[in-house]
Structures are given as C-alpha cells and as structure tokens.
C-alpha cells in the first residue's frame, strides 16, 4: 500500500457532494478518507501542496480506442493508459472494435487484465453488441459483464438492424448496463468522408449529411422508449441530435449522451486543404452544429464529455483524404480544450466541467469513482486551470499523433493523476 496522501489547500470541486471550495483531501489505503478544512494527516502521510490548483474526482473517458489486440502499431492498452493519465484521466472505457473484436468473456477478460497489469488508468472494457460486430446475433452479455464489461456497443459499425438494437436494449436490463450507440445510418453516409455541405461540394468530397446521424438517433430514442433500456448516445455532432435528445430526456427516456472536444471546437472548415487530421466520424459539422453541441453541454442535454480517442499511424493518415481512416487522438488534449473552449468562453463553469468529465460519466456507466465521498476509490485529478501550454504531438505519450490541434495554445493541464491512492502522473511522467 502506498503512503497516505494529503492534497493540501487546493480548490476542491466535487459536484457529487456539491463541494466547491478550498479544502484538504486525504487519501489512504486506496480510498478517499475525507474532504475537510485543514485535515491533520496521520504519521507518514505524503503532503502535497496544491494551492491554486483544482482537486476533483478523477476524470473518466467513456469512449477510447486502445487498439489492442490487433492494431498495436496505432496504440496499446499500455500506451493508451499512459496517454490517459497524462491527460488527467483516471479511467477509460475501451471500445471493442479491435481485431478480433471484444465480443466474448475471454477477450473482455484480456482487456481488463491488461489494464490491471499496466497499472495506470483503470481500463474498463466495453463489449460488442453483436458477435463479431456483424450486426446479426447478440453477444453473451451476462458473461462479458462478469468478466468486466461495463457497457456494450458496436461502435464504428453501427447496429443497422432495428430489431437487434431492440433486443440489446431489452437484454442488457438484466445486467444493468447501457447500450452505447454510434448513430449512423450507413445507407446515408456510405462513401462520405466529411460533412455534407458547401465545403464538401467545394473540395469534391462525398458528404455525410446530418440526417445520417439524426435518423439513427431518432430510431434509438424510440427503441429506448419502447424497451425502457438504458441508451447512451456517443459523440453527438448535430443540432438535430441535440434537440431530439433534449426532448427525449424531457419525456423521461433513460438516455445519456456524450460530446467530443473536436465537435465542440472545430467546424468542417478544418478539413480545408484535405487535412486528414480533421477526418473523423461523425464528421466535423457547421458552426450552427458546434453552437448546438455547446448549448447541449451547457444545459446537460449532453451529459458527458468523451474523447473518441482514435489513434492511427502516421502512414495511415499520410494519404489522400478519401483513403485515410477516420479519427483523431484526444486523451491528451481533452482537458485543455474543455477548459479553453468551454470554461474560458463562458459556456460552462469549472464545477460543470468536472461534472461532465467525471461525475456524469461515472453515473452513465455506473462506474466506481466520479466522487470524493469517503470510502470511494482514491481516484483524483489535480489540474491547473490557468496553466498555458502548447500542444506538441511529438511529445504525446500515445503511440499516435493524429491531432488537428498541434501547435494550439491551451489552458488547463493535469499536474497530478492519482489512481487508487497512487500518483501515476506527476505532471511530467507516468509511473505505475
């Protein structure tokens, strides 16, 4: 067991308890002992002065691609976990579109065990909805949950068959896990490589209309209503999607939804010049959509900020736009973008940021953490919301550097990432 840690004099923000003020946080034996003014630590406690810094429950990313097994040249569970803690994340949820896909208890167990072996961020496996992600037959959800799965999804290969989606939303109710949905009607998006509109017309690229996403969001909301199952909508990028989710929540449908930093920051104009680091799915949309996503984050329609961290090798992105794969890395820029683009621009407050990046993700997938209540896991992020830094992709701990944010000046950076009471990131290096 590591020594107890006292985080002294920081601004403690814990939305789960309504805390926002200068207090001390004591961690011992892997759990939070208490949050209070001027705690007297027991003998042998490591005292870390954190004046001027934010101390919050550890950030949780519900949407990352760690690429292992099968695509280790892009990322591994180890490199992804390093990138996570460097970005201030104490836990990540690994998507199942690996090779082979994570669609049975053995492969779920592999991801879980590898995360434990690496010993940095907690790695929660997300299992596939369908066997082989072929969209035909449900996986053994119960056994995957026993092996550590916290949700199911066919992310990247959306469930085309509405009947299968219905079954998934029903069957998962026994196990209390959500179905996460990458909403894309492929008959509307096929062949497309960016948002459909004036920019795709100018560049001569085939477009993906908002309707490709909206049609599927509408379908899944109706199925969640029909079944009473828990639906989590991934990476919402459209104004129509935000509006439908807002309305569904008002009707009492059990839905949570996430937004990515790139969708709340960039528009389709970023693709100009055929920049493959601005190619992702769903694509970057228009300024109107960005405004709607921001409004959705502000009013809680979009509960969660998640990265959709999608590493790709340099060679794979160094191609003509149509031929390059979708996706960008996000773990090491998410906190900075959220502070810079949302907090500094007055979209949300710092406590709301902590809510969207820690408390709400924990609640959506029913994960431990997301709180500093006594007895909860000692997963804590300490960040400096005013530290200004430059995004240097060459310095990423991820194996991949595919980001459109290289060279950006951001504010907000994690200085300590603590998992289970151990400092796994100290602002300059990661250590298990």
């Amino acid at each position: 067991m590591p020594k107890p840690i006292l985080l002294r004099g920081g601004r403690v923000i814990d939305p789960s308890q309504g805390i926002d003020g200068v207090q001390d946080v004591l961690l011992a034996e892997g759990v939070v002992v208490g949050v209070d003014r001027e705690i007297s630590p027991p003998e042998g406690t490591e005292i870390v002065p954190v004046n001027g810094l934010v101390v919050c429950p550890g950030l949780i990313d519900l949407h990352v691609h760690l690429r292992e097994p099968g695509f280790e040249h892009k990322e591994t569970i180890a490199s992804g976990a390093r990138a996570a803690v460097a970005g201030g994340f104490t836990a990540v949820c690994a998507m199942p579109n690996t090779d082979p896909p994570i669609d049975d208890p053995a492969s779920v167990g592999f991801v879980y065990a590898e995360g434990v072996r690496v010993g940095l961020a907690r790695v929660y496996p997300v299992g596939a909805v369908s066997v082989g992600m072929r969209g035909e037959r449900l996986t053994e959800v119960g056994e995957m949950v026993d092996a550590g799965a916290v949700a199911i999804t066919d992310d990247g290969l959306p469930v085309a068959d509405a009947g299968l989606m219905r079954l998934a939303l029903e069957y998962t109710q026994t196990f209390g896990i959500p179905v996460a949905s990458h909403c894309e009607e492929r008959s509307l998006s096929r062949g497309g490589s960016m948002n459909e509109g004036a920019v795709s017309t100018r560049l001569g690229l085939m477009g993906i209309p908002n309707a490709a996403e909206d049609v599927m969001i509408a379908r899944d909301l109706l199925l969640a209503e029909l079944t009473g199952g828990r639906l989590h909508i991934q990476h919402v990028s459209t104004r129509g999607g935000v509006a439908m989710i807002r309305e569904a929540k008002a009707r009492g449908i059990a839905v949570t939804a996430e937004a990515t930093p790139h969708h709340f920051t960039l528009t389709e104009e970023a693709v100009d010049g055929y920049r493959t680091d601005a190619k992702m799915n769903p694509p970057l949309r228009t300024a109107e959509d960005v405004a709607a996503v921001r409004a959705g984050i502000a009013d809680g329609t979009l509960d969660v900020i998640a990265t959709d961290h999608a590493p790709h090798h340099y060679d794979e992105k160094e191609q003509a736009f149509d031929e390059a794969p979708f996706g960008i890395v996000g773990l090491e820029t998410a906190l900075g973008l959220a502070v810079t683009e949302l907090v500094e621009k007055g979209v949300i407050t710092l406590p709301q940021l902590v809510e969207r990046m820690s408390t709400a993700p924990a609640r959506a997938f029913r994960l431990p953490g997301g709180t500093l209540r006594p007895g909860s896991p000692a997963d804590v992020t300490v960040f400096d919301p005013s530290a200004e830094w430059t995004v240097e992709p060459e310095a990423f701990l991820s194996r991949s550097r595919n980001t459109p944010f290289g060279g950006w000046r951001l504010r907000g950076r994690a200085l300590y990432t603590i998992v289970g009471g151990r400092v796994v990131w100290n602002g300059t290096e990661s250590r298990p």
Partner: protein
Amino acid sequence: MTSSSAYLGKDLVGLQDLSADQIRAILDTAEPFKEISERAIKKVPVLRGKTIVNLFFEPSTRTRISFEFAEKRLSADTVNVQSTGSSVQKGETLVDTARNLEAMRIDMVVIRHSASGAARFLADRIASNVINAGDGRHEHPTQALLDMLTIRDKLGRLDGVRVCIVGDILHSRVARSNIWGLTRLGGEVAVCGPRTLLPTDVEELGVHVFSRIEEAIEWADVLNVLRLQLERMQAGFIPSLREYNRVFGITRERLERAPRDLLILHPGPMNRGVEIDSDVADGPHSVILDQVTNGVAVRMAVLYLLAGGVPERAEAAKRAGEGD
C-alpha cells in the same frame, strides 16, 4: 532544376487557386502555341531537356494523349506510368511513388487520380512541378481552360457569357473547375441536372441552378454537356439512361426552341443518345472537336509557364523551333 513560374507558382492544382490575371495569362499564352500543331514539323525546343512523368492512376485516353502531345511538341522527354486501381491496391503509397519518381530527377509530374485532393497532396510533398490532370471530384483545371479558350475563340469574350453545365455535377471535376474559372473571368454559370446529381449547397459556388433543361436552354449562351456515366444508373442516382435522355438530353428539337444560337461543348467521351443526341454532337453548334484541338495548346501553355516561361515571350519561344 524545378522551376517556379512567376505567373503560376510551382503547380497547377486547380482554378480555384488562380486569379483572373493568371487564367488570362494561360489562355493568352495558348494562342500562339496553337499554330505549332498546324505545322508539318510539330516540334519546338521550349522544354528540351525537361523530363515529365504522366502519372495516371485512373484510366484516361483523351487527357493523357493530349498532355503527351503537348509535352512532345515542346520537346520534353516523357514517361507514362499507368496504374489501374488505386495506389493502395498496388501496395505502394502515393507519396512513395512520387518520391521514387523524384529521385530519378524529373522536372514535372502530370497526375490523374481517383481521390479528390491527390494533386494537392503530391504538390505539397515533392519539389517537382505538379499539374493536376483530374483529381477525384475536385478539379480538372486544364479541361476547364480548354473549354474557356474554346468559348473565347467562338464568342470573342468570356465576360458576361452565360454557361450552363448540364448533367452529373456531383461527381464532376470538370464542372468545379469550369465554375471557378468562368466566374473569375466574369462569366455567369448555371448548372442543370437531376437533383440527385447536384451537390449540396452548389449555389454557394456562385452558380444558378436550373431543374429543367428547357429553362437552362432559354437562359444560356453555352451548354457544357457532361458525360453521364453508366455507373450512376447502376448506383441508383437515375432510374434509367432512357429517362435521362428524355428529361435532360440535349436534342435538336430542344435547341431549335432556344431564343439564340447556343454553343455546345462536351468534355468527352460522349454517350450519344444519352446526354447528347448525335445530330447535336455533329451539328453546326458543336465545338467539341475544337475543344480537343485547343486542349493541346492549353496544356502546352501550362507546361511552358510552369517551366518558367513568360506569356510575352511565348511567340518568340515558339519561333526558336523554326528551321529545326
């Protein structure tokens, strides 16, 4: 080794990047070069000692041959590299192919590729001059230049000329390059075709949209009729070629009802009886073969300018070959 033109810069990727003066310079330079192709000995030493690779990742007959004639008539040494299928299927990336060619010390690359942006991609990564001979659905600048040269020859101007591009605008690089080039020189451009084959927000490119060909014919001075590819029917964009011809085909009957004589252009190859009827293609208003002739002159002009030539000296440069 590689030149950078004071007029055009290093590359010709698209007409969107060019100013009105630059486009005019190319058209003006093409004029004196036309005559070379009429000589008994069709060769001038303008590009002697230059090596040019024609890198065609998509099948092309007309454009490749036109470039090759232009290169040879300017005395360049040329190599043709043709590859069906994408570079990826070959197992070598586009950038590796280009770097290998460059390692052989070539001066210029003419590239045709199925991916939009491929020419820009190449131009940003190699020091040689890059000329776009068609990239995906993006641009085909030399085609638009030869279309513009043909219109200017016949009508004496481009300013104020009304050109309607008819057909599959969605997949057409020819349409995009024509739109940029013509609007920059003061022309008015419209598009007409089935809504399934018009790109979203096409109006934002600065064009009018006609949904009926009859309205387009009434409006236009020039029709640029695009090839309707069979695969568009197979992909379901239109129900049948027969219906396409009935609704959008350029027929003599339709042209006879036009308020003025129309100039008919077609970038080829034609599907007779689909987008254009034979009596129109072969009729008095068709300038389709003039386009082909002008294609060689325009490409000579582009090669000459990118190699560092200046428009005012094109006439003299051309004469240098006389008596060879």
